[in-house]
């Protein structure tokens, strides 16, 4: 069986503790993954400063070029995977095997990762607001006509990574070009992308020592978060709650992303159905930037009916079908649990599953030995309903009717808002809202994101802090 080792400062290490991740369809073990004990992780991080110094020996410009070369290797080359090698096609099939994502979706995610690595200059320019990266090499410089000086907030970036969708890995990749060593804990079902990105960077000339890859358990994840100078944590509500008071950790929990229709546009909702459907169903609804809510001041039921009729056309297809639009659950029990949770919520008056009329077989569907949750649209007549603001790992959204005047206050924390309106007041309310992480004004799908924009925090600001800085030549003092 294929074995993925731990990477300790880039060196493979085969653990005596292994996890076997099954193929989502056969449930037979597909890959064996070495597991790091938490003491091992902590020990490797004791000399984090020395590892950090290795990257300081490179100029950002060199690292940018490495990233651009690594992008091509990531996309096109055979790269090491334990004792084996992995072709790009193997990578696609492996992710599909352990996560259930159809090949076509994996390829799209692969291109997202490629895009960030290839377009790293643009990404960094967005994150630093166009600052010359030599400022990071020298420690100071001039940006926008002002003296600037930045210092690193830590000697590394830890990342506790999720399983839901590979595109998420785009978020931590820029750190390496910003001279921050990486300490990664991959998800048990998606060990593939972080390993491949690391191998691509190493092939491009990046020193292996700056990469830590530690598949590990809950305790090991905690060790990474405790021990790294800065970290990112991806997880559900419960997982991120434990760390919400630690400013060293950037939390990536549920997105609760939404499409909002203003009074001025709601009567033309049919014009925007494509945008809304794309927001809900792209990538099988697995992303935090998928819309899980559609908010409108009126005509909610009609909108829900129209979405349901369209989304009900999405049916399971084989993993290698280029038309596949929905992914099965890697663990069928999770699908059944989610479906029961939704049904339980529907016992509360005020919400109805509008899609139910289109799928006589029920929400849980079987296809070629896999378990799916079919797209589900609810209509909620109040924001107070228990299902009005929920997010699940499949194409799911609640259409909520709420007066426009108080809509922005009512949406709660929302990663992406797509606001379809020309109403200036509503736009200003959204621009002023602390709840909104990413704002799309106009009919832009929530899934369409610019990588030069910050995402749940600005990675550059997470890794670096600015200090006040003035400089005068020592000679001037003597004179």
């Amino acid at each position, binding site marked *: 069986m294929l074995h993925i080792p731990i990477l300790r400062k880039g060196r493979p290490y085969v*653990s*005596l*503790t292994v996890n076997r991740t099954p193929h989502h369809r056969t449930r037979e073990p597909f890959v064996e993954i070495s597991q790091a*004990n938490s003491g091992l992780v902590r020990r490797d991080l004791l000399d984090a400063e020395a590892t950090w110094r290795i990257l300081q020996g490179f100029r950002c410009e060199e690292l940018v070029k490495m990233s651009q070369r690594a992008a091509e290797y990531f996309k096109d080359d055979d790269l090491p995977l334990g004792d084996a090698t992995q072709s790009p096609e193997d990578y696609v099939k492996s992710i599909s095997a352990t996560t259930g994502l159809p090949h076509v979706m994996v390829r799209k995610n692969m291109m997202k990762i490629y895009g960030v690595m290839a377009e790293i200059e643009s990404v960094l320019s967005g994150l630093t607001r166009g600052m010359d990266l030599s400022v990071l090499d020298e420690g100071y410089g001039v940006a926008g006509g002002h003296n600037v000086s930045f210092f690193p907030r830590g000697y590394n970036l830890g990342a506790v990574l999720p399983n839901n969708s590979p595109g998420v890995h785009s978020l931590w990749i820029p750190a390496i070009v910003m001279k921050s060593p990486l300490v990664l804990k991959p998800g048990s079902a998606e060990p593939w992308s972080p390993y491949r990105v690391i191998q691509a960077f190493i092939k491009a000339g990046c020193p292996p020592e700056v990469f830590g890859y530690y598949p590990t358990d809950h305790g090991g994840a905690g060790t990474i978060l405790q021990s790294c100078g800065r970290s990112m944590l991806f997880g559900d509500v419960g997982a991120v709650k434990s*760390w919400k008071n630690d400013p060293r950790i950037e939390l990536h929990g549920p997105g609760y992303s939404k499409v909002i229709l203003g009074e001025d546009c709601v009567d033309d909702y049919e014009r925007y159905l494509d945008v809304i459907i794309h927001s809900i169903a792209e990538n099988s609804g697995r992303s935090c930037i998928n819309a899980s809510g559609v908010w409108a001041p009126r005509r909610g039921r009609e909108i829900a009916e129209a979405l349901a009729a369209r989304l009900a056309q999405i049916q399971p297809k084989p993993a290698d079908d280029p038309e596949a639009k929905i992914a099965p659950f890697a663990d069928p029990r999770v699908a059944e649990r989610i479906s029961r949770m939704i049904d339980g919520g529907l016992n509360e008056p005020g919400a109805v599953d509008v899609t139910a009329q289109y799928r006589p077989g029920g929400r849980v569907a079987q296809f070629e030995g896999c378990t799916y949750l079919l797209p589900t649209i609810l209509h909620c007549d109040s924001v107070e309903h228990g299902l009005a603001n929920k997010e699940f790992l499949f194409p799911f959204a609640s259409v909520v009717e709420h007066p426009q005047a108080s809509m922005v206050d009512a949406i709660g924390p929302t990663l992406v808002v797509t606001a379809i309106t020309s109403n200036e007041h509503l736009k200003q309310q959204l621009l002023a809202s602390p709840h909104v992480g990413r704002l799309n004004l106009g009919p832009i799908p929530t899934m369409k994101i610019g990588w030069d924009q910050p995402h749940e925090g600005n990675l550059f600001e997470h890794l670096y802090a600015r200090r006040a800085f003035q400089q005068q030549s020592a000679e001037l003092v003597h004179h």
Partner: protein
Amino acid sequence: MSTATATDLELRQQQVKEKLDAWTREIVQWHFSPETGTPFWLDWAAKAGWDPRKEITCYADLDKFGNFQDEWLRGGPVRKWLPKGQAGKPVYVFETGGSTGVPKSRVQIDDFRIDYEMFSETLPEEHFPKGADWISIGPSGPRRLRLAVEHLAQHRGGICFMVDLDPRWVIKLIKWGEMAMMERYKAHVIDQALTLLKAHPNIQCIFTTPKLLEAICEKVSLKKLGIKGIFCGGTEMTPQFCRFAVEELLDGVYFAPTYGNTLMGLAVHKPLTAEDGYAIVYYPPAPRAMIEVVDPDNPTRIVDYGETGRVRLTTLTKDTFIPRFLERDECERERPHPMYPWDGVRNVRPFSKFGSTVVEGVY
């Protein structure tokens, strides 16, 4: 293994079995006789309608008791467990971890001393020198570990320094998500330990838990501090942890992992070897406690050697009689060893059918 050795081992196994059967009869007589018996068991026998003193003739007969219910050990009065034959002696009460509900209690008079004196015989002299002082860094409070390790040190002619850790507090911190506070508490424990280790050069032996051992070794080289042997236990250890300890933490200091609990006492380990994948193999302190590996769905069926099953414990001492108690652990059944010619257990870990409801903390 040669035929001669195998025959010798089989002979010794037979001797162990005969000794175990005789010891079982003696212990059953003790706990069920009106003169020396234990109130709980006397009451139990009166209700059961059969006399264990007549019907239990060998160790295997203990199956007649069915499985011991751990709920019987929760709450009081604890004196129901005190054999009349031990009346008048100082009584200790020890508790299990207490990570789930009301802790189980066990009253003891002599057991912890006897168990650790037996265990002492298995410790290699060169790594745990007689007359060397010890330090115990780990749970004390209501746990028998504290008195037991101190007695072990004293039995070997040493003095035992103590640093306490309260695992119940650690579990609460984890449940509350107070991870930073947990780290500070751990650092507080480690700081105390390092102070003592640096101040007392005759400390050559350590008892501690896996997590605390890791934390200490992040700060100092135990070898350079003159430590010769480490006795490690208290929580689950994986072969990977043992490998990590031997290869990366200890610079050659002898590492003795143990499996024990308040109900059983202390199991001894077969020496760790890389060739054996650092498998952790324990043997119970026969005949005072026995471990079988049983089919979880049919706990009277002992699984085959190498097969996975649930740990079933039987404790047979003058202080305590606990027949057929199903532990919260699983493992593989291990063949007898020339040093310990009775069944052992390999790679003990939390029982998977329970899921992950028990929080294991830093301790």
